[in-house]
């Protein structure tokens, strides 16, 4: 029963034209990365890695926003959800299976993106071996895993939002806002802390600190610099980020479940 719901969710994603559009865009960006690498002379590897990972992150984000959110919203809006819930399928199972289905879809897309990134970087490396630098392809792969975990968390958040939002558009906006704020709080907090206490009003400081703890810290999952510079990734740090992402997802999903169980499906 869980499997059937997971499978249908995955299929809906795959048969959605948006996924092809996003993949096409990512492919073009990767080709552009190869072309661009020919025009610069220094740190080719760093630039190419940064580009490839940014593309992968952006494409994965689009999948959450334009495929994940749409799938859930349509299910509620068009009442296709009735088929499962008018049987003895518990609502908790339904929501978890939906989440897993979206996760599977995201994982599949991430795998494609990883292959595209690696092909791009290997091409660039072979073409401009002398300028390529210390990029670690292993870390590039790990970076994709981190993007995946991050998108699982964002998917869980979008599910939570769709339980409270009055329309898919509101879910969409809330998800984007969370993404933007969650990706920047760490940087802003560091900036304010390093600038000295007299530069900013105390209110700003409090607000930033509040945002830092209230929103998920997506910067934890950003390994672009680490991979591009071939730095070492500390196991402790990496483990923390993964546990943080999964733990946060579980917590958010549990909250969504509580709301879903009480939701009126009119």
């Amino acid at each position, binding site marked *: *029963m869980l*499997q*059937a*719901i997971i*499978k*249908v969710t995955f*299929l*809906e994603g795959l*048969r*959605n034209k948006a996924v092809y559009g996003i993949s096409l865009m990512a492919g073009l960006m990767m080709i552009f990365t190869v072309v661009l690498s020919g025009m610069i002379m220094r740190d080719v590897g760093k630039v190419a890695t940064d580009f490839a990972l940014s593309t992968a992150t952006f494409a994965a984000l689009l999948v959450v926003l334009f495929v994940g959110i749409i799938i859930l919203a349509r299910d509620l809006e*068009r*009442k*296709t959800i*009735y*088929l*499962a*819930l*008018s*049987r*003895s*399928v*518990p609502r908790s199972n339904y929501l978890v299976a939906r989440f897993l289905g979206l996760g599977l879809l995201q994982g599949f897309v991430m795998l494609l993106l990883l292959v595209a990134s690696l092909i791009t970087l290997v091409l660039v490396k072979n073409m401009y071996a002398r300028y390529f630098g210390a990029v670690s392809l292993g870390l590039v792969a790990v970076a994709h895993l981190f993007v995946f975990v991050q998108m699982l968390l964002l998917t869980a958040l979008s599910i939570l939002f769709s339980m409270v939002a009055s329309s898919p558009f509101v879910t969409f906006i809330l998800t984007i806002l969370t993404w933007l704020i969650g990706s920047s709080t760490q940087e802003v907090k560091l900036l304010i802390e390093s600038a000295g206490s007299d530069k900013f009003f105390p209110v700003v400081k409090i607000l930033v600190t509040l945002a830092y703890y209230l929103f998920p810290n997506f910067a934890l999952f950003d390994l672009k610099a680490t991979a591009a510079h071939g730095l070492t990734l500390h196991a402790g740090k990496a483990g923390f980020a993964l546990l943080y992402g999964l733990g946060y997802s579980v917590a958010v999903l549990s909250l969504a479940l509580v709301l879903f169980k009480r939701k*009126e*499906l*009119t």
Partner: protein
Amino acid sequence: MIIFEDVCKTFQLERGKKVSAVQCLSLVVASGEVFGCIGPNGAGKSTTIKLLLDLIRPDSGTITINSLPSRDNASRARVGYLPENPCQYDFLTAHEYLAYSGNLSGLSSSIIAERSSLLLEKLKLSQAANRRISGYSKGMQQRTAIAAALIHNPDLVVLDEPMSGLDPLGRKLIFDLIAELKEQGKTVFISSHVLTDIERLCDRVGIIVQGRLCHEGQVSDLTMPLEELFLQVVADTGLDEVK
């Protein structure tokens, strides 16, 4: 057996307005009975059905299916539901959709194959079964939804306007299908505006007006055509416009 006991449901509208969709509904549908639920548009028929299936929750009162409270998922283990204006996962083919529907009730793939080819045959959908539902006409979608509701051979079948969008041939098919369910001893709860069908198919009818059950009785006890009774009951309530 379905029991509604003093069930009330009010919807909150914008700016604090309220609609009482179902008011103090008490109703018993016995096992093996075919019950027809009729009433004007906006009377609360679909709301009653959604309450029964725990898609929405009553403000007060209790509902039980075979002595299990409707809030218990197990009460719906042997239930098939056709929603009004049904919508399917239209990226699937009818075959895939029926398989999904069967899997939700834990059927094995061999039973799914057997039941779905039987139902597709009965509903004259075999030809289209491997095409995506998104390319189906309204009536074909309605038929697919009916097949999906019956794939697991449910004991309680809840049909919300099963005849909507169907051509005369389709209506005849569904009519025969419901008659067959009746023969098999299934409990059937139908909401419909096609009173002639209700009259011929149902053992008992209930007329709901403005959320209240205004009349209830055996079809065999009717002293006038159902339509006449319907108009009379509605006129008695003084209703002249849908809420």
